[in-house]
């Protein structure tokens, strides 16, 4: 890329004469236009992915997440609101019973209305079970597309505007790149528009909340984060970070107690509004709550790249301990791993530290908490993508292994083609020619060394090929899954260790200046 700048200075009105000017046509109009272009492209990618198969396609009797979401629409538009979480003759909770908080139910209700308006058979009570049709799939896909467009996209725009304000000329192309990284997250696109879920809603609210915190609007942030939490209880992965950062900020104000109670008031208010239909009796609240806590399930499901699953090849956790003790064990481990970043944020809350805190806390949950899905990797990925500009190498490294950790799931769903296309697209846009950023000057990269990085990447591609083409030995039918999960786990630990250290190093005075410059 080095020779480019010289010739461009001749032709380009851009005064910097910098090497990134072929992006100029994309970014010269300002953040909003750039966002519009990248957003349209991201929508196109999503629409194209949605042509592919979904989880549980033509796979009776239980189907998959697609059927779960459709079933919730069927339940919510046909039954009164009090019965949504109650087992009854018309609501068999053992068949994809609603197990997300009320906001998900409301979202299903709205989407269900839309489906009923266009294609009533796809959501009729009882008869629509396992419904699969061309139109049905299309409408379901469009509900995800529209949720993405209405919630995640504006949240990203809000974040970018808050984060970068009015950027200087030379930073414009960096912002375009960051928007692309946020909107073209291959894991999120695969899970939402391929596998079929609505993570874009809860993650979108979370991004909005983060942007709220960064812009100093803590109350807005509180409300948005509570909405995220009420859409998917998994958003609690971010709770320690929000809590510690906001607490740390409040403690630095004039009336700490007043500030804290104001935040608490907004949290309670939002919760009360969302849970309003269930607040009429204690039983109904407990009924819903019991649906949300999946304690009857195991400590992990399938194969997930966290501590419990990775170490289970040596320690058979499920056999050694009872479920209750495992619960306490995992809770302790999670809290201990969250603590460092929480303490750091309470001690010296900073915007940048907050982002690292989000990453570290969500990673702690992913690695150590109870009942983690492979899809939960989306949660730590979110703060990593928000930090993409500061930590490009870590972000890329993390994204690659996050993709790998979902690969077995993706194979089951029949989404191998979009998997590779999206991975390639991500790497292409990440490494788009004509950028100035120094990508490799990173502590993780330095720690691993160039040779190791290449070696690991080589193994990375071999693993994909092996998993696709070879049959595992009969004695160990899940050998490849176990290897993949252990490889991913090791890389995740490296990433989170690095980020924990980074968060603490931020305190040093030399780094503070950098911090100011960024925010």
């Amino acid at each position, binding site marked *: 890329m080095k020779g480019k700048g010289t010739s461009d200075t001749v032709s380009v009105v851009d005064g910097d004469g910098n090497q990134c000017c072929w992006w100029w046509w994309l970014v010269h109009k300002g953040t909003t236009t750039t966002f519009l272009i990248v957003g349209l492209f991201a929508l196109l990618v999503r629409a194209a992915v949605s042509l592919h198969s979904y989880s549980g396609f033509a796979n009776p009797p239980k189907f998959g997440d697609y059927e779960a979401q459709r079933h919730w629409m069927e339940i919510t538009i046909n039954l009164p609101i009090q019965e949504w979480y109650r087992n009854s003759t018309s609501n068999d909770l053992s068949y994809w019973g609603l197990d997300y908080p009320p906001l998900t139910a409301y979202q299903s209700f709205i989407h269900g209305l839309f489906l009923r308006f266009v294609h009533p058979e796809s959501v009729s009570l009882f008869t629509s079970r396992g419904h699969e049709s061309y139109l049905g799939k299309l409408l379901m896909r469009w509900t995800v597309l529209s949720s993405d467009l209405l919630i995640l996209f504006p949240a990203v725009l809000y974040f970018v505007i808050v984060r970068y304000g009015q950027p200087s000329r030379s930073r414009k192309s960096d912002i375009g790149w960051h928007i692309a990284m946020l909107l073209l997250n291959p894991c999120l696109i695969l899970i939402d528009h391929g596998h079929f879920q609505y993570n874009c809603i809860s993650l979108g609210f979370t991004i909005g909340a983060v942007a709220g915190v960064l812009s100093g609007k803590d109350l807005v942030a509180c409300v948005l984060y509570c909405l995220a939490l009420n859409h998917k209880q998994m958003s609690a992965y971010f709770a320690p970070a929000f809590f510690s950062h906001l607490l740390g900020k409040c403690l630095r104000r004039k009336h700490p107690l007043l500030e804290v109670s104001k935040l608490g008031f907004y949290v309670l208010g939002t919760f009360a509004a969302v849970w309003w239909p269930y607040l009429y009796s204690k039983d109904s609240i407990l009924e819903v709550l019991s649906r949300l806590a999946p304690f009857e399930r195991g400590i992990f499901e399938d194969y997930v790249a966290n501590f419990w699953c990775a170490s289970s090849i040596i320690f058979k956790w499920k056999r050694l301990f009872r479920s209750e003790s495992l619960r306490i064990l995992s809770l302790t481990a999670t809290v201990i791993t969250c603590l460092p970043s929480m303490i750091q944020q309470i001690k010296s809350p900073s915007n940048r530290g907050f982002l690292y805190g989000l990453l570290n806390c969500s990673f702690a949950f992913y690695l150590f908490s109870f009942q983690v899905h492979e899809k939960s990797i989306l949660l730590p990925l979110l703060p990593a993508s928000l930090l993409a500009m500061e930590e490009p190498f870590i972000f890329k490294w993390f994204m690659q292994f996050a993709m790998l950790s979902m690969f077995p799931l993706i194979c089951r769903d029949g989404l191998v083609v979009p998997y590779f296309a999206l991975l390639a697209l991500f790497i292409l846009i990440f490494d788009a*020619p004509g950028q100035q950023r120094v990508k490799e000057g990173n502590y993780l990269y330095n720690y691993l060394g160039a040779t190791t990085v290449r070696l690991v990447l080589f193994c990375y591609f071999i693993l994909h090929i092996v998993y696709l083409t070879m049959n595992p030995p009969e004695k160990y039918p899940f050998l490849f899954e176990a290897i993949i999960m252990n490889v991913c786990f090791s890389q995740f630990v490296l990433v989170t260790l690095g980020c924990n250290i980074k968060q603490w190093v931020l305190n040093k005075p030399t780094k503070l200046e950098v911090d100011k410059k960024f925010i």
Partner: protein
Amino acid sequence: MGKQKLSSKGVQNSGCTKATLWWFYLVAACIKVLLFPSYSSTDFEVHRNWLAVTHSLPLSQWYFDETSPWTLDYPPFFAHFEHFLSMFAHLIDPKIVHLQEGLNYSANTVVYFQRGTVILSDLCLLYGVYRLTRNLDSRKQKLIWLSAIWSPMLFIVDHVHFQYNGFLIGILLISLSYLEEGRDLLGGFFFAVLLCLKHLFAVAAPVYFVYLLRHYCRGGIGRGFTRLLIMGGMVAAVFAAAFGPFFHLGQIQQVIRRLFPFGRGLCHAYWAPNFWVFYIMSDKGLAFILRRLGFNVQTPTATFTAGLVGDSSPFSVLPQVTPLVTFMMVLLALSPCLLKAWKDPKPQMISRWVAYAYTCGFLFGWHVHEKASLHFVIPLAIVAVQTLEDAKHYFLLSIVSCYSLFPLLFEAQEYPIKILLLLLHSILMWSGFSAQFPDGAETARAPTGHHTEKKVDQRKSNGGFVIGWIERMYLIGLVIVEIWGQFLHPLLLGDKLAFAPLMLISIYCALGIMYSWIWQLTFIVKSP
């Protein structure tokens, strides 16, 4: 900007340029791969059948086989191309190339294989674009790549609907790039090859003929005549390589019959947005008025899309249109351009002339497909960055012609995709052109170096990339046409007049294409 300056820098720049070009191609390829499961037209089965025909049958049977209704009707080189592909298809899944069992085969293997070959054959387009743009300055290059490699029309026609236009237009661009460099013999060679791949490209043959005659075969009678012989011999050799074997087998008549099915009508099933739409509409209008006035006008029995059967005319008032009439009209429309090429055969103008020729063929030709608009939109993309007027014209033309392809993808599943493709293209073009041609205020803000000052002055006088109000109204009208056809018409009229939305699209887009034709014509006539 001096050419020498560029070329000295071009050397160190080329590595990076190539990397960026590959980047454009690969990003597009990712999207194309994602589009694998989308709707594909019967053309998909047509090409699969050709794979089977060329693989399972000897050359002597290629143009006789009638196992499938989709018989081979492309020239021999394309058949050889399919034959080449079929060897790989056989390795991947033998059923693809099976003549009977493969009929309407739609397993993943055949979809992935065929769609993959389209993506790979786009490398030809990539090379053509690279050859045409390698000496331009960096920003113009990127703009051209944007519009040619990421052309939404190619996505719609090649990668969803299914055809190999990127490959064919790539060869056209390679030919044009040789002509622009002054290497006429190679340019002529590639055009001859192109004609043996798809004969519909022959519309530009008169332009090529006049241009080569005047540009290549110049310099006195003796030298000119020798060169004419060389060129003629080369073209003849290419055609002999393609058609010779069939001539030898005595099948040439059968081949010609397949290539030119004149049993077809003036218009395709969906009327391409060309001149004949107006002709048909004025016929209908006249018939309506005359009937009102009390004349006895008979309703014609024949349709426009069917072939000519006996004496029955599809027109009730206006005279019948025959293939000969359309041929003469194309030649007539071409004549100003041919005259220019005769008077002063300038290499810089050849791309425009060829594009103009395809525009004429599209507007006045017999049984034109809406897809044929690709033949002139992509070459025009190459010249779109030259002046501000070009940019404005191309902006409008590319949107209109892309929109005219919308009826190709009529299923609901692809609806968001085609809309997003067009929107993305328009906003990229708009953003790109306004960066390339900034208005006065914007350039004043930019801290400029000394060497650019002169340019800035020129640009100021141009006033920047602003869409005029007529064009703006026209584009807004496009949105209204779409909303009417998609939502209001089914809502208000139900199933009545079901053909009306399509007809509306045809008429409305035909206006835009007519405008583009007139614009190109004036540009060519006015050019010094």
